[in-house]
């Protein structure tokens, strides 16, 4: 539909540190008075804007300390933006109507020690004003879906890290939300657990829901996201479909040839922009406008065996590192 599931415009968050800064309302005063040791400010988010369309899986990517959690907390109404604005499901931030249809998993979640899974989910269901029957059915289904059936008798205090993460995801879905915001949903999970969560996110998309999740693990994003935003140092660095972001600025081609005699290999190396030795094969990277046909013919003529010819695709890692470097030297 027309309105985006989530949008932010020029979002800024500055933290006031130090003694007075921790008291509400005093931070700004301390900064204005420039009291040393009292007025310390951290610019966690510096003007972030993006939109998440309905029905997409949107990855919010950035290294540690980039400002992902701070941005998400502003979206969830946990922090007041220093400036800027946003919308959730067509309503301004903090609107109750939108929160009724929202699911949220915080970073490193922690829940009530003495509650058992059903009690816990039931409590959260009540906050959404769900009926007792709805709550029971939904909680049971989620416990089953997240593989926690074996732990229904245990209080949350006795849950392992991965189990806490799973019950956290269950609580985020208790109200069958339209928009799901997950802050590092895969953290603390083993490879099987991560795959489970990826599958679950995909399932949610197929049900027509919008998923917004943060991570610094590239693999998670590469496999399931429709679009990503990259945030570094509190600023947006890239935004778009992965295929676009990963397109190489130049048309390079990677040719991999096996069993190439050494002397031919050295000759061909001169024609390539770069080479990588892969066991008994060699990967040649040919630059823009190189004559790939002639190069391949040459290699085969010299006794080599063709393994593959593929247009070079940047990896997300390349992009990430390149953007991070750009951030370090402005």
């Amino acid at each position: 539909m027309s309105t985006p599931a989530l949008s932010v415009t020029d979002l800024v968050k500055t933290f006031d540190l130090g003694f007075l800064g921790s008291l509400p309302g005093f931070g700004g005063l301390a900064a204005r008075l420039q009291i040393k040791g009292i007025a310390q400010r951290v610019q966690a988010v510096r003007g972030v804007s993006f939109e998440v369309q309905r029905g997409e899986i949107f990855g919010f990517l950035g290294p540690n300390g980039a400002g992902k959690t701070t941005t998400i907390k502003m979206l969830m109404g946990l922090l007041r933006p220093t400036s800027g604005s946003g919308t959730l499901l067509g309503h301004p931030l903090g609107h109750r109507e939108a929160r009724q249809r929202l699911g949220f998993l915080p970073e490193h979640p922690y829940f009530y020690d003495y509650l058992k899974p059903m009690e816990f989910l039931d409590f959260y269901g009540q906050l959404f004003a769900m009926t007792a029957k709805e709550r029971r059915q939904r909680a049971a289904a989620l416990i089953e879906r997240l593989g926690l059936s074996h732990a229904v008798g245990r209080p949350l205090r006795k849950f392992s890290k991965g189990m806490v993460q799973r019950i956290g995801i269950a609580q985020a879905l208790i109200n069958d939300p339209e928009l799901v915001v997950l802050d590092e949903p895969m953290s603390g999970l083993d490879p099987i657990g991560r795959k489970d969560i990826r599958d679950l996110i995909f399932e949610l998309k197929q049900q027509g829901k919008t998923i917004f999740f943060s991570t610094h693990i590239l693999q998670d994003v590469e496999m399931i996201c429709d679009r990503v935003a990259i945030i570094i140092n509190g600023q947006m660095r890239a935004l778009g479909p992965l295929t676009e972001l990963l397109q190489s600025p130049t048309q390079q081609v990677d040719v991999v040839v096996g069993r190439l005699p050494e002397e031919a290999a050295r000759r061909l190396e001169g024609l390539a922009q770069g080479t990588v030795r892969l066991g008994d094969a060699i990967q040649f990277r040919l630059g823009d406008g190189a004559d790939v046909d002639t190069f391949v013919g040459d290699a085969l003529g010299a006794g080599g065996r063709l393994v593959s010819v593929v247009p070079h695709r940047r990896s997300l890692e390349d992009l990430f590192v390149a953007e991070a470097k750009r951030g370090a030297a402005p």
Partner: protein
Amino acid sequence: MRQIWAIGLNTFREAIRNRVFASLIMFAMALMLMTLAISSASLHEEERLLKDVGLFLTSTFSVLIAVFVGVNLVYKEIDRKTIFTLIPKPIFRFQFLIGKALGLSLTMLVQVLVMAVVLRLQFLVVDARFGLEMVQALFLVYIEVLVIVGVALLFSSFSTPFLSGMLTLGVFAVGRFVDRLVDLRLKTGGGDRTPELDQVSALMRGVAHILPDLSLYNTTTYVVYDKVIEWSYVAQATGYGLTYMAVCLAVASFFFSRRDFV
């Protein structure tokens, strides 16, 4: 309303299942048994002493537990980040705060009831009268506890648990003598009033008007002399206490609603 109830019930459940709470009650009960030993050592006066000390311990202990739990109540939710999943739910922040207050009030009700039962048993042992005035007195102890719950939540809405605890205890200590502060007229050693002393007196009187008048809830004289408390007095003290608590919660909600959760 349903959401407030859910939060209250959850708070109550957490508190009741917490071992710290259980051990506090045990400790209070042990202390009360000691009163029994002391009072039985004092001949003739034992019944009065038991009533006086028993009521004093019940109220002081309940208030101390209310302060201890109250100042940590909201802080714990923030510190443990459980609040991160509550705030984005479709509830107002004031509903969260009132729910917490409700949960603590329920918890304290259990606490006062347990102490009351212990007291009743003690009275049985020494064959003392446990009349209507005792029930009234214990009820007023509970209302006093509710006032303190409100004060503790108010302070903790903008400061640390330690500072809130100190401030709340201060309010409690001074609050018990507010009735004397209200018409305070300080005099010099020679019995004269000076402008400075008048100013100090005025300031103290001002403070006394803001602090809760907890002397209302000290009904020891009635209990010791087996005199039933007038119902109008009970009603008035209850109305005053609940109003004071409500005002505290309203101010606390104001601070709480503009707070960042980092």
